[in-house]
């Protein structure tokens, strides 16, 4: 098995999911100025909803995913209305703490719903593989179906999101709100509704990412939610308010993690086991040293 191409391709797969999560952070941050620490909670609830709809109720996978995304989007909009709207104008730091409180509540809810059971999402990919290049005897570059699924689904969704933001009226309204809330209000845009919409979008994207993360052919438990925080370095290295940066950051982190996982235990074991979980932060620190606002982030302009 050819190690490097396999690692890169599987890294692109996880990178696509990180990109989805990072974009969900960016959508919320651009519209409301809040770094939403509750995304992992929404992510795992999306996984749970899909699991219930696909396994217990028996709906087809695509339908179950669509419904789950809708449910979590509604939940996210509700959270915004209840917990975040009162914090308008209060600054980023306390609002981030409110999202942490919401995260605790959502996480406990997820634990209660999972009820100590492991669940599957009945995805159509399971552990099937396809072979990109034959080697001697065995497959030289095997690719799991779920890797392809992740890349395709993430790409389609992000392209659709991009079109919607740039071409539709509501998308334009959201971008206006993200740019300048007061001016947007003056133009007649319902800024409150834009807030809820952006949170709904962010929640939906997180739920979709959760389903994709759970499609590994194994089972998923409630504490897998905490893994979503690995999207933070992807978000930061791309620039916290840039969609392009989020996608690039996600893919970069995914590939770097996979390559490190493949090579580090053999070539640099002194770095310790599971060093690939720390590599995203190392990359992020290096990028921040060179570009303190991330690769594509807008430089903060200070006026005295």
């Amino acid at each position, binding site marked *: 098995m050819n190690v490097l191409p396999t690692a890169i391709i599987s890294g692109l797969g996880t990178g696509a999911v990180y990109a989805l999560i990072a974009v969900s952070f960016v959508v919320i941050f651009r519209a409301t100025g809040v770094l939403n620490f509750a995304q992992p909670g929404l992510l795992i609830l999306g996984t749970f909803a899909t699991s219930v709809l696909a396994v217990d109720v028996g709906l087809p996978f695509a339908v179950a995913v669509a419904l789950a995304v809708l449910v979590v989007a509604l939940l996210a909009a509700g959270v915004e209305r209840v917990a975040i709207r009162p914090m308008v104008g209060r600054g980023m730091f306390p609002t981030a703490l409110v999202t942490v409180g919401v995260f605790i509540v959502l996480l406990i809810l997820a634990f209660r719903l999972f009820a100590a059971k492991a669940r599957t999402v009945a995805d159509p990919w399971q552990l099937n593989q396809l072979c990109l290049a034959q080697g001697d005897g065995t497959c030289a570059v095997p690719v799991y179906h779920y890797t392809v699924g992740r890349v395709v689904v993430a790409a389609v969704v992000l392209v659709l999101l991009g079109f919607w933001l740039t071409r539709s009226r509501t998308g334009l309204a959201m971008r206006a709100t993200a740019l300048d809330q007061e001016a947007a209000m003056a133009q007649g845009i319902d800024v409150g509704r834009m807030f809820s919409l952006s949170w709904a979008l962010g929640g939906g994207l997180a739920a979709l990412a959760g389903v994709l993360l759970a499609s590994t052919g*194994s*089972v998923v438990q409630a504490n897998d939610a905490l893994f979503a925080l690995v999207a933070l370095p992807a978000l930061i290295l791309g620039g916290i308010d840039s969609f392009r940066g989020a996608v690039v950051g996600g893919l970069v982190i995914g590939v770097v993690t996979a390559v490190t996982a493949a090579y580090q235990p053999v070539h640099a074991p002194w770095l310790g086991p599971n060093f690939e979980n720390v590599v995203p932060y190392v990359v992020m620190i290096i990028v921040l040293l060179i570009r303190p606002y991330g690769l594509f982030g807008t430089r903060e302009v200070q006026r005295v």
Partner: protein
Amino acid sequence: MSRSRPTRAVLALCAAGTLVLAGCTAVDDPGTEAEAEAPQPSDEAEDTGSTEEPQETGAAQITIGDGVTEEPCPDAVNPDNGCIYLGVLSDLTEGPFAALAVPITDAQRAYWRQVNEDGGIAGFDVDIDTYTRDTKYQAAEHAAAYQQIEPNILAIAQSLGTVNTESVLGDMDANDIVAVPASWWSGYAFAENDMGLIMETGYSYCTEAMVGLDWFAENHGEVTSVAAVGYPGDYGGDSAAGVQLWAEANGISDVTVVPTGPNQVTGNQDAVVSAIAAANPDVVLLAVGPAETAEIVGKLAAGGFQGRFLGSLPTWNPALLQSGAAQALIGLYNHLAPTEQWDGTSEGVEAMKASLDGEEPPNAGYIIGWVMNYPMHALLEKAVENGDLTRAGLRAAIDGLEVDFQGMAEPITYGGDGKEVAVSGVIVSTPNPEAPLGVESADEFYHGATFDKVDYAQACSATS
């Protein structure tokens, strides 16, 4: 004057403090337990009409101490009985072992409810609900919860996590609190590690590795290379140490150790998969969780791996048969356990099944939790026989205590060191969708030759 006043005040305070400190004298901690003579209320237990044979201990008095009261338990089954309070320190919400620990605790509650319905122990009901605390698998929470419940309990019925138990072991030693651990570290067999306070059930992970590999060599042909995959700490560390000991004793030099972590920390097990694929051993011993097991076995099988897998006690969950790795698990994986599984035939298993009215629990944690109660039950009864139902009495009664687990697990005689207390029988199971809880287990305990050859004189893996 204003500048020197605060300085003078501070100096005065320091002088006062030093005076007080100088007046300190060290005293030995006076015992805070109020030992009271309590008449044995066994006559009242007989009056409740239980079918149990009446206590024949005559008019002997039982000394009771902290953690035992003559007042009935809250929501008592037998309102005329006194109450023995047992503590439970487990991971019941957010930690990585909540999936296993919740059924363990449920099984314990069911067991002691059954004991109470049968009349209790020597006129005392046993309460394990009041002092159940969630530790989230963190040593800090465990220590704080232990501090909270310690004054009111007689012993600890479940202490989850080796590190957590170790963090309060010194205090337990000072207060004579015995405990049954929900962890299988090899160090518990040695008095230097557990101070004679811990009543382990089943084998240790270290022993499991040795006897499991013996079984494998006997049933699946000669082993030339072996790999150990595990979480860091007493779980994976002990298991890997066992694999190393087995390899040394059997002249195998090709041993690969792959440390990893749960998926919430590492995201996926791809690093493990590539390391095992590269090492290509004959057998892989897994000391991870169920999700990781499914991923490792499934992906390696899909990649053409030819070896087989042995999974430690916590690696199985019936839900794995619905995952994509189900076929691979059925074909290549065996589960190791120190007790009979749900399809066992012993008296203990029958009693356990009866407690759930024939329904299946969510996972095998229920079996673990059921088995853990036998030592505590036997200890309480022996203490009653000795007439000393105090903490010190319980601690003294451990020496020589024989527990037969109603056939579910191998009998243990506590109080010795090393191989005197360590058991090494394993029940090997194969995944089977038709069987209860998804595994079909062997009929009897298997013993291997390697354990007897090995010098089991200290803990296999250190805890610094």
